[in-house]
């Protein structure tokens, strides 16, 4: 096992990693920008190294500075957390080149999964379902009709050179597709200087469901069931839960098994998440995250397994501490991401925390690097606290979450607490009936 781990991150995830290390008896080195000298994980770490000025590009994204800090502090390993350099394969490579351990997968796997095309190909070859589409470019209306016949309606016409939703056309019938293809081609030509188009199945009201896996260097792979992260605003997850409402035991077991088999085939190791869109009983792969995720605690709460500890163990060359058959889902868990933002306008709200009171008691967990008197700096992302609540049933979990939100106090800055208070009282949320578009409409 490592003696000393350098935490190459900030905020709540840096504290999360610090806590996991201390719980395992490992010393910690906190690296930080000048803006984070008083951050909680810096205060608590065994050693601290200032690596640069506030701008992330000169500090938390400054790979040479972080590796120098690891060398001068004598750390064995570097945990990248999420964001920043966590999915940068060169960073992983540099770390290995300096005979340090990177707490994550191999640089090669980061690289494969970092590219949408290679990721999709890799998992598809390993048996994971992806969104069905035309096999490459659609040359003509007849080509398109034939492909759509195979895929099943509705379909979406996309421009190869496009992005950001531009030039997309949805067709529910052959008639509509016949009309859409010529228009899409000319729009693509005008907008992207390239008239190549292709077809994909159009998912109308999918849910975002993701499967947590752990894989060690001995070829053992386990899945820890799924999370539903459909509640998103501008592609940012807001509230996550596990198990996913409305997923049957059979579906849960099937996708879990598929993911384990694929990950084993790919030869991936460490923690990872396969993200899917889920509609009509089918899963469609979106991407694989090759790092610990913000929402990992909901899985920890229902499985009773410390994911950060396991990721450190795996990186240190140890086996996963349990078998698939020992993974039992117990109850239900929900995480609220509480951001330093206005709850309606979502304008970021850095500033000093005047008072901070966290909810307590049974089934309540708070992952937050805030404390009374702390200044939330304006330079980084706005995630201020994760309130994670567990209950024996989803209903109890929601009641407990309402209760916990009523106990929580973060004064001095705007936060999204009122948004979460509204969500837990909403009939659709209570019923578990929402898709990836629900929240955008709710906050509109």
């Amino acid at each position, binding site marked *: 096992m490592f003696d000393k781990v350098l935490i190459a991150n900030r905020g709540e995830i840096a504290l999360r990693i610090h806590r996991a290390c201390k719980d395992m008896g490992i010393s910690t080195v906190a690296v930080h920008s000048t803006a984070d000298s008083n951050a909680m994980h810096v205060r608590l770490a065994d050693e601290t190294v200032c690596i640069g000025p506030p701008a992330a590009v000169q500090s938390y994204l400054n790979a040479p500075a972080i590796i120098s800090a690891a060398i001068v502090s004598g750390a064995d390993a570097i945990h990248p957390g999420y964001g920043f350099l966590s999915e940068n394969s060169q960073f992983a490579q540099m770390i290995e080149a300096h005979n340090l351990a990177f707490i994550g997968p191999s640089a090669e796997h980061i690289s494969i999964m970092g590219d949408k095309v290679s990721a999709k190909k890799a998992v598809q070859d390993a048996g994971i379902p992806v969104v069905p589409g035309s096999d490459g470019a659609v040359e003509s209306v007849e080509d398109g009709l034939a492909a759509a016949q195979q895929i099943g309606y509705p379909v979406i016409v996309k421009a190869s050179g496009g992005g950001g939703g531009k030039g997309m056309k949805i067709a529910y019938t052959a008639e509509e597709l016949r009309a859409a293809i010529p228009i899409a081609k000319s729009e693509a030509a005008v907008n992207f200087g390239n008239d190549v188009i292709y077809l994909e199945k159009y998912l109308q009201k999918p849910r975002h469901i993701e499967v947590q896996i752990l894989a060690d260097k001995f070829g053992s792979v386990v899945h820890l069931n799924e999370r539903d992260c459909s509640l998103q605003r501008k592609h940012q997850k807001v509230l996550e839960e596990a198990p996913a409402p409305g997923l049957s035991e059979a579906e849960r077991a099937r996708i879990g098994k598929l993911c384990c088999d694929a990950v084993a085939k790919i030869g991936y190791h460490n923690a990872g998440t396969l993200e899917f869109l889920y509609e009509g009983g089918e899963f469609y792969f979106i991407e694989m995250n090759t790092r610990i995720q913000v929402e990992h605690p909901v899985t920890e709460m229902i499985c009773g397994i410390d994911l950060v500890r396991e990721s450190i163990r795996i990186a240190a060359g140890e086996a996963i501490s349990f078998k698939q058959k020992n993974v039992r889902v117990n109850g239900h868990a929900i995480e609220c991401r509480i951001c330093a933002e206005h709850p309606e306008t979502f304008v970021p709200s850095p500033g000093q925390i005047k008072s901070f009171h966290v909810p307590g008691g049974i089934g309540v967990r708070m992952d937050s690097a805030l*404390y009374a008197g702390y200044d939330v700096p304006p330079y980084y992302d706005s995630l201020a606290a994760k309130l994670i609540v567990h209950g024996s049933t989803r209903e109890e979990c929601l009641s407990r979450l309402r209760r916990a939100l009523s106990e929580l106090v973060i004064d001095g800055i705007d936060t999204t607490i009122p948004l979460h208070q509204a969500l837990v009282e909403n009939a659709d949320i209570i019923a578990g009936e929402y898709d990836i578009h629900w929240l955008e409409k709710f906050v509109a």
Partner: protein
Amino acid sequence: MGDFKVDSKLVRKLANLLDETGLGEVEYESNGERIRVVRPSSAPVRQQAPAPEPSIGVGGPGNMAENIAAEPAASDKPHPGTLTSPMVGTVYLSPSPDDPAFVTPGDTVTAGQTVMLVEAMKTFNDIKAVKAGRIVSILVESGQPIEYGEPLAIIE
């Protein structure tokens, strides 16, 4: 209380004594005269001790309570001629262990003159004087790990 005279200087003197000694209260009685001054318990004692210099390896106390109690002392303003490290690494005062130091206190330097090296990721980076002046003091030892922004020397 027509002719009650308060000796303001005495009050100030005792206030200073409280500061100096860290006491909370002084009561004094002499020849039927009595004075008592009290410092409110929560008023921060003016921090006289210099701010501790950051240093790699010393580390945080690993304890929120100590940390909150020991709210970082308002750092004395750094000397305007302080040369700080632009990167994390290991500092060297001479080009090699056998060579003499680039500079020693008392030396006069020109702007751009190399005064130390910082090794980071196996490359040696020159640390140059940003302006001409006299080296007042060298604040680090050769071979010492340093962090970003750590004071290296003072040049006047």
